[in-house]
């Protein structure tokens, strides 16, 4: 069985069927792309996978466990982490603390340990700092650890979001337009980073992106949505040449 099994997933907002009859299956450690025109329902799929929206139909099974309709906290614990299309950082907290919040369920000690500064506090905090810095280093953010998140430029904010998501030690990482607002060089760099993250953490990655070089360069399999429905599926090459995809999404040259 695959890591993520989505079957017949759908949601409607009022009269609008934003996503319908979506099937998706992602293997452990896979790099998977989800693309489609604006408003196709990609972000909505992410929102259902992470419990932000409750699907009106269908099932989501992660690692053999049905997580359909669970709340985001639980889903995070089950092993799905994400970034957001509109960046959502903890703006008034430092870069380091942003990642440490991501470690919330990984390195734990209870409230009293913190308040009474029991020995475990120091130990665990050190561990957290170590882990967090390790992650920041991967994304080349270690020098900005003390900055407030809001003071980072856009591109770095995107990276910080990914670092934070990774801190939750997910089995599946969802990235919503990670390269938006980055120039080609930065995008290139990000591709490498994502590859190495996958290799290092063995995490499956599902990503949404409109930058075709990025998607084609990185994804092993791609699903294309249009008006909430799957219109194509396959590897980069197949997608690039699919006439439906060209018509709805890529546009002919």
């Amino acid at each position, binding site marked *: 069985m695959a890591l993520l099994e989505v079957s017949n997933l759908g949601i409607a907002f009022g009269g609008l069927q934003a996503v319908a009859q979506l099937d998706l299956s992602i293997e452990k450690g896979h790099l998977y792309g989800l693309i489609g025109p604006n408003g196709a329902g990609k*972000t909505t799929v992410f*929102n259902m996978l992470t419990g*932000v*929206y409750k699907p009106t139909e269908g099932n989501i099974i992660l690692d053999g466990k049905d997580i359909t309709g669970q709340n985001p906290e639980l889903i995070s614990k089950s092993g799905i982490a994400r970034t*957001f299309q*509109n960046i959502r950082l903890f703006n008034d907290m430092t870069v380091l603390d942003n990642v440490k919040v991501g470690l919330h369920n990984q390195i734990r000690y209870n409230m009293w340990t913190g308040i009474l500064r029991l020995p475990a506090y120091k130990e665990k905090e050190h561990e957290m700092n170590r882990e967090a810095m390790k992650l920041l280093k991967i994304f080349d953010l270690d020098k900005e650890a003390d900055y407030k998140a809001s003071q980072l430029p856009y591109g770095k904010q995107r990276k910080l979001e990914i670092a934070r998501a990774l801190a939750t030690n997910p089995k599946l990482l969802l990235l919503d337009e990670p390269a938006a607002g980055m120039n080609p060089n930065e995008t290139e760099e990000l591709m490498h980073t994502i590859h190495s993250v996958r290799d290092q953490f063995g995490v499956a990655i599902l990503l949404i992106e409109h930058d075709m070089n990025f998607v084609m360069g990185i994804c092993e399999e791609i699903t294309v949505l249009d008006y909430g429905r799957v219109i194509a599926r396959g590897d980069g090459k197949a997608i690039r040449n699919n006439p439906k995809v060209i018509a709805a999404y890529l546009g002919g040259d």
Partner: protein
Amino acid sequence: MQFLSYLINGISLGSVYALIALGYTMVYGIAKMLNFAHGDVIMIGSYVVFFAFGSAGMNPVLAIVLSMVVCTVLGVTIERVAYRPLREAPSLAVLITAIGVSYLLQQVAQLAWTSNPKSFTSVVSGLKPISLFGGQLTISAETVVTIIACIVIMVVLIWFVNNTPAGHAMLAVSEDRGAAQLMGVNVNATISLTFAIGSALAAVAGALLCSSYPTLQPTTGAMPGIKAFVAAVFGGIGSIPGAFLGGILLGIIENLSKAYISTQLSDAIVFLVLVVVLIVKPTGLLGKKVNVKV
């Protein structure tokens, strides 16, 4: 019959709350600030009417117009001096300044007019109360006028906001000031206009509040101000019909709980109902649910 009379008392009180709440919600809805000095602007307005109409014998309509002018100038000045410098500051900062302004107005009123209570002569004392069921039930002229004023103001406000350029500017400012500026909206002028309208409404509210409940003191505006704020939230803050509905309901709940449960605990009951309603309907009765797209 008795029930009806309590109900009418409630509506009467509620219509006053509603009138005040309209001013609150207007300012809140556009400027996104809780203007805790609103009640005190009402108090100042009432004093103006008291002296112009009660003491100097001016025509009541003229007295109210005068009071509206005074309150508008006052409201716009307060906004200019005390709130505008904090436009970009956290909203709590403005809240605290508003509280400072509230203290200030009360102190000024006390120094100017002493703390001795004044008994307000109803501005509609010329009108006859409505008598129903052969006199078993009377609805005072104040109540009738207040309700009519409320409805008229509500309708005009809704029309204004939705159908005039200035109204559109208000909507835009309430959503995103920076973006509104980029549309060519003069944010400061729009907020000033909002305060002008809110304060003019405060003058009307003051005259009618004191006509129904005639004791006038420097603290007169404080409690009705808070209650009206509660009413505005109850109805869904920022929503004009919500303010009306919230005000009326608050008045009714307050009076019915006095009538049938306990006069001693009626405040607690009113607030309890409010809490329960908000738990069930977290954005108030007519409040928009804010859709955060993730």
